[in-house]
């Protein structure tokens, strides 16, 4: 059974339909790349998956549990949604690190606040906090940022900031990690270091959804590709197949604009 099942997601802003009947599945350990021209609804789809936006139709199922369904009001309460967000991690195009906290604090914050809800928190506060810090340092080390733990976001390069953001998104061990154009705000020299991290994550079988304009990267790293246009999924399939032998005319036109 697929880890993630997205079925019939639709979303309109006012009278403009931004997403229409989006359906796809994602297996554990798989990476799916979402490509498509500007305004095709890629960001909106990720935001719906992370419940930052509420879809109008469809359902989202993770590991067999229906997290959200337009037809079931019980899945939509704010309290219910909060915990469900933890199934997804989200990495933003412009990082959105918290400027008043160091890299380490950025990574630890959510875990620390969540730990306060544990029944044994008061009793074992020291150990729990030490554990969280060790975990955060480990994540930063994985991102090659051991020596930057005490730096504030503005003291870091864009590539470093994005790697901190990835560590932060990983801290709560989400089932699925979502990236919204993680390298679009970066200089070309810095793009490589973030893509390298993504390659490592893919090699370690992290389940990921990556919205990207890096076609070569998508072809090499993603297991599957989903091409969106005008709010609908035009074509999806194995990455190399979609990029090298697109079936749909619109996919071909889109890829042609990237020199493929």
């Amino acid at each position: 059974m697929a880890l993630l099942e997205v079925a019939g997601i639709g979303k309109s802003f006012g009278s403009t339909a931004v997403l229409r009947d989006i359906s796809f599945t994602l297996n554990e350990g798989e990476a799916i790349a979402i490509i498509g021209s500007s305004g095709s609804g890629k960001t909106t789809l990720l935001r719906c998956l992370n419940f930052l936006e509420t879809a109008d139709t469809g359902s989202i199922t993770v590991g067999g549990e229906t997290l959200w369904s337009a037809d079931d009001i019980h899945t939509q309460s704010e309290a219910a949604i909060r915990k469900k967000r933890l199934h997804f991690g989200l990495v933003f195009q412009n990082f959105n690190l918290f400027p008043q906290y160091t890299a380490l604090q950025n990574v630890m914050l959510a875990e620390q606040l969540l730990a306060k809800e544990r029944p044994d928190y008061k009793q074992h506060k020291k150990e729990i906090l030490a554990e969280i810090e060790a975990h955060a340092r480990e994540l930063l080390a994985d991102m090659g940022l051991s020596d930057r733990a005490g730096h504030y976001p503005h003291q870091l390069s864009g590539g470093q900031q994005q790697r901190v953001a990835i560590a932060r998104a990983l801290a709560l061990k989400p089932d699925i990690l979502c990236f919204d154009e993680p390298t679009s705000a970066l200089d070309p020299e810095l793009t490589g270091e973030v893509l390298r991290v993504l390659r490592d994550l893919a090699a370690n079988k992290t389940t990921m959804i990556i919205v990207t304009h890096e076609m070569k990267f998508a072809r090499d790293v993603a297991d599957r590709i989903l091409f969106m246009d005008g709010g609908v999924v035009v074509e999806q399939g194995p990455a190399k197949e979609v990029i090298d032998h697109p079936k749909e005319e619109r996919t071909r036109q889109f890829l042609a604009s990237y020199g493929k």
Partner: protein
Amino acid sequence: MIQILTTYGGLLLTAMGQTLLLALCGLFFACILGLIFGLLSVVKNRACNIISIIFVDAIRGVPMIVLAYFIYFGIPYLLNTIMGFGGVTLSALQAGTICLALNCGAYMAEIIRAGIESVDKGQMEAARSLGLPYWRAMFRVVLPQAIRTMIPSIINQFIITLKDTSILSVIGFPELVNTAKNVVANSFMSFQVWAIVAVMYLIVITILSVLAKQMERRLNRGRE
């Protein structure tokens, strides 16, 4: 001048103390009111937004001197004479504090609303995507950033409120202006007395501005 200072200096200093006391009491409650109504104006709830708008507009639409008379004379009259409770009294300090808290609170609410709105929406979204509840995200992530941008306006508002305490001389609170009036009535030396009073305000407010600047600099240290 010297004679005024030796005769009435102590009196005026005590009065300045009263002015500061009144300003502090007013500012304390103004901060609380400002935070409450500022937050009410940014939450995604129409009713809360409207409550906040009504409070801010109502207070801003009434001159403070009218507010002062209303609270000091009007409210006890309403309670005692019209509603028949009897025995309700408000001291000038209590009435003055309420008056300043409401007035300054309304402006603080606007400053806090603008401060929160100046923080990038992505900050709240990043916090929420990490599973932080709305209010946690607000207090741990958004407000600390908002406060940094708000500090100059807040200090400015504090200074305005400190000066506004002089309006409360009309309800008989023994702050600096009220006391100075009495000193002038006794000594007939209005030029000297009012010059001294002006300089006293100037000194206190300058000290506050300098302290504020230092605080601002400390808060901004190490950040762009």
